[in-house]
């Protein structure tokens, strides 16, 4: 579907020759070249539009079921910059509620995780059940008898659906069902979960959290960028060589091998994948873990086990990653400020030693003091400064050699910028759609 140009919606940024650009013109996608205008990283007006047009209509990860396993458990988060409570009621029913008192608007819960049957507003003592219903208020005689029947409540987020423990919510009541949204990427989510012999991911308590003064899309691009490893992570490659785990030559070979199972993929809806048969930097090395590999093979059969053990970084548009060792959520704050939540995972049913060794390797690379991820973030910050020099950036790598497979995936070498093109084509499609007109084009 061609993007709909927006009448009169001119972003007040200029390209290098001084022309005003419309949103749909911020990307030039022609032949073997794909270019992006650097204002997409710096323009606050574009950022606000991203919130309403992309985040306001996308299925967004809000929590994992493991964070709220029992009745009464809750977690708080944000969705599209709006505060929400993820709560499990006495009937095990899950709710995603806006964290906003129906009376005068205060948040009713300030903890990040906890257990509560009710939420009490700190302002005037209104009390809401953990399913959102208003159950009481201080000095009730100031209201008529039918007060509790007015339907006042913590408003639910319009749509909530769960896939394999991942709780997604959507602010758009007319959004397509989650299953339809995930239909191309779902098989990869299954493979990610099935790294557990029981098919179940659990989360040890403790989150690696970053903030950085740069645009959120640098992280979205980078998590499925197979081109930067030798350069941004030269330091980590040196560490692997020093410890004898893997020579720099072998690391380069794993990255550059052409042929089977060393791919970058672009999927519909802006999703993307990086796949490496011989391992990804910062990922636990399973090559000598024969008992775990055997366990996976017994659980799923040799063919599927082989697919499960492929190393993958999975990007689910617009802000969720599933990495081998963790779930990563990007929370955009402003055009030049981003938060990242990294939830390390355990594989239920795998030996404790495997899970602890995975975590220990994760801590080596990730986290604000890790030996890998902070170097990525340094590059995002360098790019934020650079992007202020407004002009065109190249996302053309491998465009001349990509193909489309029978599943509808665009596929190419793992160092090609296929996932990034997929991301930005979806970005442009959504940014050029004006939902406020009510038309579905």
């Amino acid at each position: 579907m061609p993007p709909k140009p927006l009448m009169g919606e001119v972003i007040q940024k200029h390209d290098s020759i001084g022309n005003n650009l419309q949103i749909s013109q911020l990307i030039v996608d022609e032949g073997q070249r794909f270019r992006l205008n650097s204002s997409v990283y710096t323009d606050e007006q574009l950022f606000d539009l991203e919130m309403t047009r992309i985040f306001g209509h996308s299925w967004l990860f809000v929590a994992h079921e493991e964070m709220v396993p029992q009745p009464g458990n809750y977690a708080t988060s944000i969705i599209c910059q709006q505060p929400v409570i993820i709560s499990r009621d006495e009937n095990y029913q899950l709710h995603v509620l806006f964290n906003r008192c129906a009376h005068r608007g205060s948040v009713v819960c300030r903890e990040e995780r906890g257990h509560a049957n009710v939420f009490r507003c700190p302002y005037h003592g209104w009390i809401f059940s953990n399913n959102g219903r208003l159950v009481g208020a201080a000095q009730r005689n100031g209201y008529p008898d039918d007060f509790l029947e007015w339907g006042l409540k913590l408003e639910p987020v319009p749509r909530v659906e769960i896939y394999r423990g991942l709780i997604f919510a959507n602010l758009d009541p007319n959004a397509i069902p989650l299953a339809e949204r995930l239909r191309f990427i779902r098989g990869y989510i299954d493979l990610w979960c099935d790294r557990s012999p029981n098919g179940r991911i659990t989360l040890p308590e403790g989150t690696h959290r970053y903030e950085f003064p740069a645009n959120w899309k640098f992280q979205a691009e980078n998590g499925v960028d197979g081109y930067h490893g030798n350069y941004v992570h030269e330091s980590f490659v040196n560490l692997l060589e020093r410890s004898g785990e893997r020579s720099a030559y072998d690391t380069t070979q794993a990255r550059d091998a052409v042929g089977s199972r060393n791919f970058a993929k672009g999927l519909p809806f802006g999703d993307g994948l990086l796949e490496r048969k011989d391992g990804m930097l910062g990922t636990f090395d399973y090559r000598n873990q024969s008992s775990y590999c055997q366990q996976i093979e017994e659980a799923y059969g040799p063919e599927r086990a082989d697919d499960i053990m492929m190393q993958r970084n999975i990007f689910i548009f617009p802000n969720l990653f599933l990495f081998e060792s963790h779930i990563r959520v990007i929370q955009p704050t402003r055009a030049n400020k981003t938060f990242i939540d990294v939830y390390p995972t355990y594989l239920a049913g795998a030996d404790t030693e495997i899970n602890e060794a995975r975590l220990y390797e994760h801590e080596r690379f990730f986290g604000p003091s890790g030996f890998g991820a902070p170097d990525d973030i340094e590059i995002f910050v360098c790019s934020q400064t650079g992007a202020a020099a407004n002009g065109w950036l190249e996302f053309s790598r491998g465009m001349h050699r990509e193909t489309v497979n029978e599943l509808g995936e665009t596929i190419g070498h793992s160092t090609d910028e296929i996932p990034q093109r997929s991301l930005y084509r979806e970005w442009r499609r959504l940014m050029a759609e004006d939902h406020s007109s009510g038309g579905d084009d």
Partner: protein
Amino acid sequence: MTPTELPADLATLLSVQAFIYREARLLDDGLLEEWLSLFAEDGEYILPIKDGPPPEPAIIRDSHARIEERVYRLSSTLAHSQRPRSRTQHEITNIELLETNQPNEVLVACNQTVHELRPGNPFQVGLADPRSLHARCRYRLKANDGSWLIREKCCFLINREYPIYNLTFIF
């Protein structure tokens, strides 16, 4: 007035204090190899997220081998997040001996504030931007030849569960 012999605990406190000041100075001077030599062979360097035992995820949970790797990374590899290298200044207060009942070992508490800045073009994001990080620290020290070796350095950052930008220098 003639100097008198100090009570044993006070002598220990002064010696521990001198040791921790020296550790801070080595870090602030960028003498990382020398800093490394302050650790016992089984020494650990930890920045927890939660206050529980492993295997809860931590910001840093370095065994001695990983401390060595950290020093090697900072001194001998192209670690972009430390190019330019952080300039740091440690301030240490509230030094207190918590346990002195083990022979040859003490448990010490102190508070630390690290002022940090990465020098460079002030018009570039992330450079020439001073900030301060704060932690309550705990050292388990082992007596060694008239001084001490670190068996554990554990720093509970005040913002340990919350988003943190570039913490790649040594706290």
